[in-house]
């Protein structure tokens, strides 16, 4: 293809007769189409990488080559991308968990060579079914391979995504017959060098990061309440719509709810987010992405799950509620703002919990060696086990087992292999790569220190970011809070808002979801089958706080340590129940009993009963000393540990509040509720002071 032919395609695709290539766009297309090269393209968001791969796809398809496969963490092609692909006559489809009903149709089109470009997420590659039924059949004829967010290929890339390890190995085995385009918006020299080393024969094209419209500012506000107050004080004074990043899912939920309570349209966006009107998390997330895209909400309150490469040209602001993990991560997130508008804000807030949160992430990034060998040991003794079977054989949490399997499965060679939903031990002599884990852990710690330093910087903030990213253009920006203080926003907020925010944090009850199934064979003494009959299930309950959180969590922890729950907790607890107003209204109160702390919970429950004017009955007797429930790590062991441990006496046939201090997995209340109901009580509403991290 000649440059002129390429230009015609560009003009057609963006429907602009006078369009010219951006710098390096044609060079990339030429290398892919005419020389079938491997290219690493480091260009800012909005440079037009999709133009590159769609024009290349058109040209290669015209020459008779196979489908272009695009691997990208985005859930769907952006609307404008689909439109420009359509203008080139490119049939671009995506396969993800939201459209599983269409898989067969798409698969048929793929096999009939009717699809020009297939977009998939990196996680798809770990899905055996997808690999076997969709990707493998078309892999006999792939024309071009595109890997988005290619910085994840490097161990030096700021976010270590396990699925990219697999992509890297696939790229390494790819013969030179297939052109490869790897793209990223953020890669410093070290990352580029590493990618070049790992993917043999790849050439790099690198542009500048410049983002002229962005006004950067860092504000330190120690308490969460002060940051919540600040956001409400100022968010409406920032034009346009934007993203508020939080470090945890829970904080995304809290901040979104706070905004909603203050009449600001906002939604939480994270990997587990669901909505009753949507089939699954993916489809709801896609809906949220579109809402922001169309400026139907002021802000998405998101974790890093908000797809990398989310491309909204007129994003007005990016506010960080907490410090992100690294400067590169920060740049990548804040760099989404202000691409095609004159002014945008990038506000980095930071508080007391930042270092704890990041330390938790860093330290829990890899499974412990002990867990790894426990899982391997079980698999060694078996001839293939499903996830559920593993859970029944070892006392580890579902999440812990999953983490081990995920970690091991991406090693190569790997000590385990999944075939048709069962995990097998491969004949591989395996030891954990401690050196690599130590290296990655240390690197993450350094990266977090770097952003803490950046937070305090008095220099031009934009230049600081660019230098860290080895950008060639490092002049002062002239508009950040340090270059031009008159551009900066105040860090103060109204006293009333501060009080309101701190009250809000203390009134953040968490629902207890209803359990519908016990693990098979876990409760033999009680004779409970797997499915819990509706008449034995508890109702939705409430938890006052998250263990150690900014609301009541810290008080609960301190009080528990002193073996007495203070009256301020009784008050808060009763307030929560009144606000919640369960129906039918409970007529009596009981609590979980213990052989070790005989008075702690009953004393608390009794005072709650007095305050509410309801009778208190010690309906539950602990009749067997068992292991502390917190030592039981997965559903089977958690339930099994409760089998036969309690006896029910003295009940009333009316709705009841079942009080406990700490809820972890929720099996204790599920089992006790079933026992209470079996004995003839009315509806059971569990109410708990605090939930632990895994609850």
């Amino acid at each position, binding site marked *: 293809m000649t440059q002129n032919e390429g230009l015609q395609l560009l003009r057609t695709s963006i429907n602009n007769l006078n369009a010219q290539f951006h710098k390096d766009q044609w060079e990339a297309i030429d290398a892919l189409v005419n020389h*079938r090269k491997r290219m690493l393209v480091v260009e800012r968001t909005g440079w037009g990488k999709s133009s590159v791969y769609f024009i290349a796809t058109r040209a290669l398809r015209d020459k008779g080559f*196979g489908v272009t*496969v695009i691997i990208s963490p985005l859930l769907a092609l952006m609307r404008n991308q689909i439109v420009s692909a359509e203008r080139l006559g490119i049939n671009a489809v995506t396969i993800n968990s939201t459209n599983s009903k269409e898989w067969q149709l798409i698969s048929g089109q793929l096999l009939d060579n009717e699809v020009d470009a297939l977009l998939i997420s990196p996680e798809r590659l770990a899905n055996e079914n997808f*690999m*076997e*039924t969709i*990707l*493998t*059949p*078309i*892999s*006999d*004829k*792939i024309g071009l*391979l595109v890997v988005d967010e290619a910085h994840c290929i490097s161990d030096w890339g700021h976010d270590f995504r396990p699925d990219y390890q*697999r992509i890297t*190995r*696939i*790229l*390494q*085995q*790819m*013969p*030179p*017959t*297939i052109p490869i385009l790897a793209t990223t918006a953020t890669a410093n020299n070290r990352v580029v060098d590493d990618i070049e080393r790992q993917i*043999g024969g790849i050439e790099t094209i690198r542009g500048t990061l410049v983002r002229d419209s962005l006004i950067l500012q860092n504000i330190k506000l120690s308490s969460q309440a002060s940051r919540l107050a600040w956001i409400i004080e100022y968010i409406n004074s920032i034009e346009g719509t934007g993203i508020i990043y939080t470090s945890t899912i829970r904080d995304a939920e809290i901040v979104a709810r706070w905004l909603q309570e203050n009449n600001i349209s906002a939604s939480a966006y994270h990997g587990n987010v669901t909505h009753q009107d949507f089939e699954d998390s993916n489809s709801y997330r896609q809906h949220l992405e579109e809402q922001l895209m169309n400026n139907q909400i002021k802000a998405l309150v998101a974790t890093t799950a908000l797809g990398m490469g989310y491309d909204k040209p007129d994003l007005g602001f990016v506010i960080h509620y907490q410090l992100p993990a690294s400067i590169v991560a920060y740049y990548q997130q804040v760099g989404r703002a202000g691409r095609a508008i004159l002014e945008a804000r990038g506000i980095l807030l930071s508080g007391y919990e930042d270092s704890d949160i990041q330390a938790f992430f860093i330290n829990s990034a890899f499974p412990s060696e002990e867990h790894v060998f426990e899982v391997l040991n079980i698999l*060694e003794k*078996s*001839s*293939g086990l499903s996830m559920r079977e593993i859970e029944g054989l070892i006392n580890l949490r579902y999440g812990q087992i999953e983490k081990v399997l995920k970690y091991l499965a991406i*090693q*190569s*060679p*790997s000590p385990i*292999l999944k*075939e048709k939903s069962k995990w*097998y*031990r*491969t*004949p*591989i*002599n395996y030891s954990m790569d401690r050196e690599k884990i130590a290296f990655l852990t240390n690197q993450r710690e350094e990266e977090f220190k770097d952003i803490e330093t950046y937070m305090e910087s008095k220099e031009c903030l934009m230049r600081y970011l660019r230098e860290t990213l080895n950008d060639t253009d490092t002049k002062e920006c002239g508009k950040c809070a340090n270059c031009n203080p008159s551009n900066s926003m105040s860090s103060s907020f109204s006293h009333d808002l501060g009080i309101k925010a701190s009250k809000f944090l203390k009134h953040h009850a968490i629902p207890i979801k209803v359990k519908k199934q016990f693990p098979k064979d876990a409760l033999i003494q009680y004779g409970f089958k797997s499915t819990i009959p509706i008449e034995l299930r508890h109702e939705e309950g409430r938890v006052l706080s998250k263990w150690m959180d900014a609301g009541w969590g810290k008080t609960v922890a301190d009080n528990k340590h002193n073996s007495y729950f203070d009256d301020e907790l009784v008050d808060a607890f009763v307030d929560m129940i009144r606000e919640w107003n369960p129906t039918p209204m409970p007529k009596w109160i009981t609590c979980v009993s213990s052989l070790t702390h005989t008075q702690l919970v009953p004393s608390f429950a009794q005072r709650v009963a007095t305050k509410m004017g309801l009778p208190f009955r010690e309906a539950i007797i602990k009749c067997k000393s068992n292991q502390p429930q917190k030592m039981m790590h997965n559903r089977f062991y958690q339930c099994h540990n409760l089998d036969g441990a309690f006896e029910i006496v003295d009940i009333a046939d009316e709705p009841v509040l079942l009080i406990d201090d700490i809820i972890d997995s929720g099996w204790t209340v599920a089992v006790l509720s079933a026992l209470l109901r079996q004995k003839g009580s009315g509806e059971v509403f569990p109410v708990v002071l605090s939930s632990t991290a895994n609850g």
Partner: protein
Amino acid sequence: MNMLTPSTQAILLLTSYFSENRVKNIIPLSAEEWGGFAQWLHKHNLKPESLLEEGIETLLKDWSDESITITRLQALLERGGALALAMEKWQRAGIWVITRTSPLYPQQLKKRLQNISPALLYGIGNPKLLNKQSLGVESIQESSQEISSLFWKAGREIANDGYILVTDEVNKSAIKGALENGGNSIVFVANNLLQKSLNGAYREALIQNDLVLVSSYYPESVLSSNNALETSRYIQAHATSMVRVVPKSKNPPIQLSLFDNDTQEFTDLFFNFFISQLQYIPNDTFKPKELEILFSLKSSQITTWLEEAQERKIIKRLEGRVKRYQLVE
């Protein structure tokens, strides 16, 4: 992890399937086809990896073959995506692949089978075993306890003598006999190497480098009768000599027989116990020429040969060893 060389990539693309889910009309070159084509490439100063570059029409302008057409070659070479996906999975499971030019490739197969030796061998376990001298055991199914036990002993004796047992998957007892007595084994697998590598019975020996499973078929292939036949050919080609177990209805119930590698027939040796043990005699007892003669003999010729052998004092050496192979009561 092993990065494939471009040469291995090219050979894989030309000669291997990668999945059951594939474009049905693209058929890789057989070992024989590849053998001929590779010779042609060599003669024209071309390397397999040259085919991965642009413009193979020009490179192959002097090539013409009714069955190995340029179109077929191009379709095979286009399967780079399939190759990369499959190799990533297989290597993750610990599987490696070697070509005829690899020093790890069993030279015995190259020597005996020449052009029809497999273009590629997939394997798991210790590849260094492939170039050690082996004794082959190949058989009927292990239908009885008695046969199993005999196989186990055969495995043990081979191990005790410092030889490697080469066999197929049927002879589980022989493999056990060898491995349980500190020996090593090469097992030729006719299909689905990946799945078989996950068999718990092999795991420890594979991890300990005492065992290697090899297959000339891609690791997720399903069985075709052809696979089984060829596998048996590879075992025969690899083994210095072969043992077959033949059940008899009368006493002695089981007799060991020597299998003739060249005529593909049993050389049923009726000379009782003494002769029935011949196959266990490691070839250092014989001079290579003598062995060759031995294995090409028909039973009618054995008597003559033995007389001659006695004259040449081979029998003396044989007698010394035979006492160690008390396999049949």
